[in-house]
C-alpha cells in the first residue's frame, strides 16, 4: 500500500499534507499522535467517509483506490475498525456478516459455526451472534465485536483505530495476538493507539507520529518512548 502526496481535510481544515509512505505486506505499523491531530480522520479518509476531503493517491496493486466508493475500497481489501461502532437495530451480528460475505444457504451452517468460534476466541457471550449489532454492548464488547468482524472478513489491510480503548488487559493481549497472527500471515496492519501497554504484546515494524500536519516515520523505540514520556 503506497501513499503519494496524500492530503486530508475536514471542515476546511487541512490535517495532513502531502504524506508519502509505503506499507509493506507482513508489516505492522503503529501510528500515534496527540488528541485531535487527525488520526481517526486519516483512517476514515482512507476508507472514504464522505465528509472527509482527500487528495493525492493511495495505490493498492497499482490502482488508486481513492477513486473508489467506500464499499469498493472494502472489497479491495481495506478494513477500518471503529472507535465507537454504531448500533444497527434489528440486524443481528451474524446476519450482518452473512450479508457482508453474501453467505448462501449451503454455507450458512459452517459459517455460523466458525462465527461462534470467533466469538469464543474474543470472549464474547455465545449468543452474541443473535444479538443486534452493537445494541446494548459495552465499549469493550463493541471492540471485541469489531475484532470478530476483522477476523471473519479477514481483509488484506486493517486499520485499527484505538481498538484498545475500553479493553481490559486480557483484551489487549487478545488484540495483539490477532494482529501478530495477521502479520505472520503477510497482511498489513496499521494500529492507531495511545496505549503503551498494547505495545508490550504487539509485534510491530514501523511507527508514525502525527506532527506539524504530516506523518513522520519513526522507529518502534521512538513510538514507545513517545507513549511513555509524551509528545515533544
Amino acid at each position, binding site marked *: 500500500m503506497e501513499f503519494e502526496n496524500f492530503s486530508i481535510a475536514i471542515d476546511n481544515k487541512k490535517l495532513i499534507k502531502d504524506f508519502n509512505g509505503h506499507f509493506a505486506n507482513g508489516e505492522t505499523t503503529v501510528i500515534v499522535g496527540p488528541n485531535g491531530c487527525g488520526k481517526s480522520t486519516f483512517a476514515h479518509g482512507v*476508507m*472514504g*467517509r*464522505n465528509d472527509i476531503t482527500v487528495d493525492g493517491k493511495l495505490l493498492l496493486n497499482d490502482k488508486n483506490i481513492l477513486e473508489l*466508493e*467506500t*464499499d469498493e475500497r*472494502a*472489497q479491495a481489501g481495506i*478494513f*477500518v475498525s*471503529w472507535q465507537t*461502532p*454504531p448500533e*444497527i*437495530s*434489528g*440486524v443481528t451480528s451474524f446476519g*450482518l456478516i452473512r*450479508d*457482508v460475505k453474501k453467505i448462501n444457504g449451503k454455507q450458512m451452517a459452517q459459517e455460523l459455526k466458525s462465527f461462534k468460534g470467533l466469538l469464543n476466541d474474543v470472549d464474547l457471550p455465545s449468543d452474541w451472534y443473535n444479538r*443486534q449489532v452493537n445494541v446494548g454492548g459495552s465499549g469493550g464488547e463493541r471492540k471485541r465485536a469489531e475484532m470478530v*468482524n476483522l477476523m471473519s*472478513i479477514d481483509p488484506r489491510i486493517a486499520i485499527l483505530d484505538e481498538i484498545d480503548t475500553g479493553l481490559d488487559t486480557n483484551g489487549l493481549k487478545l488484540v495483539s495476538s490477532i494482529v501478530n497472527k495477521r502479520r505472520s500471515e503477510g497482511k498489513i496492519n496499521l494500529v492507531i493507539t495511545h496505549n503503551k501497554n498494547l505495545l508490550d504484546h504487539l509485534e510491530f515494524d514501523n511507527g508514525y507520529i502525527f506532527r506539524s500536519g504530516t506523518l513522520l516515520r519513526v522507529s518502534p523505540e521512538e513510538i514507545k518512548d513517545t507513549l511513555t514520556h509524551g509528545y515533544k
Partner: protein
Amino acid sequence: MATNRITSLSELWEDLQGVYTPDRFSDDIAHRVVLQQADKMMLENDSSHNDIYKSAVFKKLWNKKIIYLTENTFTEPELALRQPDMFEHLNEYPQSEHDEVVFGNGSFFSTVGSWTRGYNIWSGSSHTVNEAYSSILDNIEFNMPSALSSRLSNSAQVLNIDTYVNLTLTSDARNSNEATLQELADDHWSIKASDEPILNAGIYIVRVTKGNTAKIKEVHASGNAVFCSNWIYVVDYGATLELDRYINQTDGVIDNTHIIQYPNSKVKINTHDNGNQWRNINITAYQDTVTKLNGSTLLKDSDSANFVHVHHKGQNGDSDIKYNSAIYNDNTGNFIGTVQVEKKAVGTKSEMTNKNLLVDPLSRAFSKPVLHINTKEIECTHGCTTSKISEDELYYLQSLGVDRRTAKTIIANGHIQI
C-alpha cells in the same frame, strides 16, 4: 339487491344504505343480528370529520373498481357442523402442530379431510344466539369498512376455540371467489377474466374460550382480490391469543379488527404491512389484561394506513404498542394510535411508540399518537419519531463492503424487525 357486477366499495355503500336486510338471511338468527347492527351503523355514520378516512390509501381502496359476486362457493349452510367437530382431528392426530382454516365472505371452513366443513356456534334457541351476538357487537365500534363488510357477509359464524390450537387462518385461493368467478365465467355469466380484482368481504368472529391458548397465523393471500373484512377476536377470561398477521400478494386490504379482552387475558399481535392496506385495530381491554401489539410496515410500492385504538375499561391493564415502518420511494405511511383510559381503569400502564424510517428523500410519514386519560394513578407514555437513515450506519455497512443500496435495505429491514 345487486347482481354480479363491476363496482366499488363506495358504490356498494351508497346502494346498501337504508336497504332492508334481504329475506334470504331471515332463517339465520346470528346473521340477522349482525346485519341489523351494520345497517344501523350505515345509517348513523358520519365520516366527515374522521381522521381515519382522510388518507389517500383509504380513498384509493374505497373507490377501487372491483368485481362483486353475489353468489359464491362459500355459502353452503348444509355443510355447517356443530363446533366440536371443527377440531376433532386434533384428537386423531395429536402430533399435528398446525391446523388450517380457510376464511372467505364471512365463512370459515376446515380443510382437513377430504371434504370442506363449515361450523357454527351458539346454535341454541333464538334468544341465546341473539344475546350472544348482541353482547359482542355492543363492544364494537363500527366504521365504514367494518359496517359494509358485515353487511356484505354471507354468514356470521364464530370460530370457537375451546382447546389449545396452533392454526393458520388463510384465504385459500382454491376456495376463493376467483375460483367461483372462473366457474361462473365458464357457465353463464358474462364477466370473464378481468383486470378488476374480486371483492372478498365478510365478518369473522374468533373466540378463544376461557383459559385456552390460541396461536393464530392470519394470512390474506390471493393474486386477484380485495379484502374488506370485519374481524372480531373475543379473548375470554384468562385466555391467551397470539396472532401473527400477514398480507401476501393481494390487490388491497381494507379492514377492521376488534379485539375484546376479558379480565386476565393476554394478547400478543404481530402485524406485518407491505402497503396497499388500510387497517384499523380496536382493542377493548378489561381488568388485569396484558396487550402487546407490534406493527411492522415496509412500504416499497404503495401507501398504507394503520390505526390502533386501545381502550382500557378495567383496572391494571398493561398495553405496549410498537409500530415501526420503513418507507421507500414517494410512499406515505400513516399511523394514528390512541390509548383511552376510562375513569375506573386505575393502575393502567401503557406505552405506545411509532418509529418511521424514511428511506428515500420523497418518502413521507404521518404519525399521530393520542392519549385520552380519564383517571389518575396510571402510567401512560407515547412517542413518535420520523427520521432518515443515519449516514453513520450507512457508512459503517459500506466500510464492511456492502454497497449503499443494499446497506439501506439492511437498515430498513432491521428497523421493522419485530
